[in-house]
């Protein structure tokens, strides 16, 4: 991984507040028109004043940072492989001070289109809180895939996925949050969707394949309906993209597969 990743982890600043939906704070790092695919990293919020001063949650924040750093290295590794084959570059966009609401209601279709046009493939933010009696540390991490929201606004296609920790209420949250494979999976789904629209079919199919592989690992030891539906979306879109490439006489090996059919089930 480059030295950029750890340095930008500072951006995982935590601010107080489950705030109401407001206009999104601008993120200059997203606005730069460099053509790179971007992972937008917003600030996390605490759910309450009580949560803000809680040492368990401070520890949870540190573990999120540790998990994020490792997973971003994994994402960079996969992007590097795509870069070698298909000329792709991917980087973090540091959106310090930007705190979307937990519902993500700010990301309407227009906002998603704008982000997608700026090649943001996934935007990540979250909230840490204490819940229940006795209070248990919880984390909610949201992942928005702007290209999916923009190009596949089907209600059944999960363009905003929230991962709640503990995934398994019986297991301590600290044992689960260190593996943030979702980040890589969702970023690759964003890359694939964007590339498919740009008719970069080899890149789209390669990114769908990588996403599918990571989603397999995301599902180890946990079930999440949104992730399951996203996997169906990936399967469906990978196949449809292949058919579109063949129909468009896209050069390359896909033409050899024209006898393969796609599953009829639509996610």
């Amino acid at each position: 991984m480059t030295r950029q990743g750890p340095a930008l982890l500072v951006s995982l600043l935590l601010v107080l507040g489950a705030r109401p939906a407001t206009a999104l704070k601008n993120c200059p790092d997203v606005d730069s028109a460099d053509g790179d695919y971007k992972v937008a990293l917003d600030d996390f919020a605490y759910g309450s004043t009580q949560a803000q001063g809680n040492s368990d949650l401070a520890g949870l924040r540190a573990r999120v940072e540790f998990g994020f750093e490792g997973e971003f290295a994994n994402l960079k590794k996969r992007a590097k492989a795509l870069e070698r084959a298909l000329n792709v570059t991917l980087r973090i966009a540091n959106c310090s001070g930007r705190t979307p609401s937990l519902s993500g209601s700010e990301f309407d279709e227009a906002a998603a289109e704008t982000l997608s046009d700026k090649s943001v493939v996934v935007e990540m933010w979250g909230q840490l809180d204490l819940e229940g009696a006795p209070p248990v540390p919880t984390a909610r991490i949201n992942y928005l895939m702007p290209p999916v929201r923009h190009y596949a606004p089907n209600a059944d296609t999960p363009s905003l996925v929230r991962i709640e920790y503990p995934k398994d209420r019986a297991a301590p949250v600290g044992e689960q949050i260190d593996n943030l494979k979702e980040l890589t999976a969702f970023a690759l789904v964003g890359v694939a969707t964007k590339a498919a629209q740009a008719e970069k079919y080899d890149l789209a199919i390669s990114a769908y394949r990588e996403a599918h592989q990571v989603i397999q690992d995301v599902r180890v030891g946990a079930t999440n309906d949104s992730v399951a539906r996203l996997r169906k979306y990936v399967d469906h879109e990978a196949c449809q993209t292949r058919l579109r490439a063949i129909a468009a006489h896209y050069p390359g090996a896909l033409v050899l597969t024209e006898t393969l059919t796609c599953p009829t089930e639509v996610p």
Partner: protein
Amino acid sequence: MTRARLALAFWALCLAAPSARAGMRSPCTDPIVLPGARVQVFILPFVAAGELDERGRDFASILQRQVLFSALKYRSIGVEELTGDSHECSSERAYDAIGRRLSDEQVALFMSVRLFQQGSVIYLQSTAMALAKKLDDSAHWQTGIEGARVGATTPAEPVQFAPRAIPLELFANLRESAVRANRLYREASESSEFRDLPRGPEARFSFSVIDSEGSWMKVKLLPNGDTGWLSASALASPEVVASVLPELRFVDGWVGYYALRESPEVARDASESLEKYLQSSAKLAESEARSDAAILLGNVALRMGAAEKSLPAARAYYARAHEISPDSTAASNFYLASTTALCAKGPCPISGDALHKEYLEAIARDPTSAELVANLESYYTVARARKEIRGELKPERIDAQLKQIHEIKSQLR
């Protein structure tokens, strides 16, 4: 060059003997690369968050000892602990500095670890990477049909393991353990006289392992030639550490895989380590690493006997790799190539139609793989000659596909 460095260079040449097993510590900025060691493992300084800097260094020292002790069963290996700050020892810099010093067909395996402590738990994540110069790490099979050879290349990407959460009590005595691990004892006993080995970022020395007893290694220190004993279990028994860090099994098997090119007798040891890794990682979210391990197992199996027996055994491992990670192009390639080779020469473990469909599905997942397309071309060539693996595929369809492949191949190179 100083006298000490000249002496070290001389001893480094001595360690080039085919049976040498060596341990080393050197700065990242000027690493020791033994000219003759077939495989050399480099352990980068562990990157530790928060207060773990010293612990990270201690842990790296201990792991160096354990990786070396575990690898004693192989010949011609070196295990080196690199020292320096995070800038000097970035993976990219280390790959570059060491890659330039490798001789042809020599293999460098790198292990890097991130550590983070919280409360009673240490969180740890490792990455392993292989670097080789002019080493053909592919497998090829003749099908018996002219012009129809199949093959696959072992993945060269870094292997990232899932984060581990390890109870702190295992490392409670880490500092003391590292101090003990750094001692050269007169006898194989902690109650015997000892002296400390050089430490710190500029420390630079090598030792050759000349004997072992229990979890102790008798070593000859270089360049001065002193002998003594080093403990390989200063922290905990190698078995205990490997049980919480399955990647140590992976690395050990990987060392064995490369060592067996020179010493075929170590194939069983390499196989055993990789199998143990697969068993202990069965419930871990690291399908890519697990798939790679199964591919290495298949490659080891290929070298364990006559082709007619080794190919079915290897194919079974490649099928396992494909099952673990159906999206891995490397796993698909090994599985399809070995299946094609088997089908071309004898009873086919799957039907011709199923094999053909699996080829097309693999290309649908990765249309950029020149190797997959070349193997499909060989499959069609064999299918044209052998009805039993052709299935329902019509000869005219085969010809049409082959014509397409000829046009595609130039685009894929």
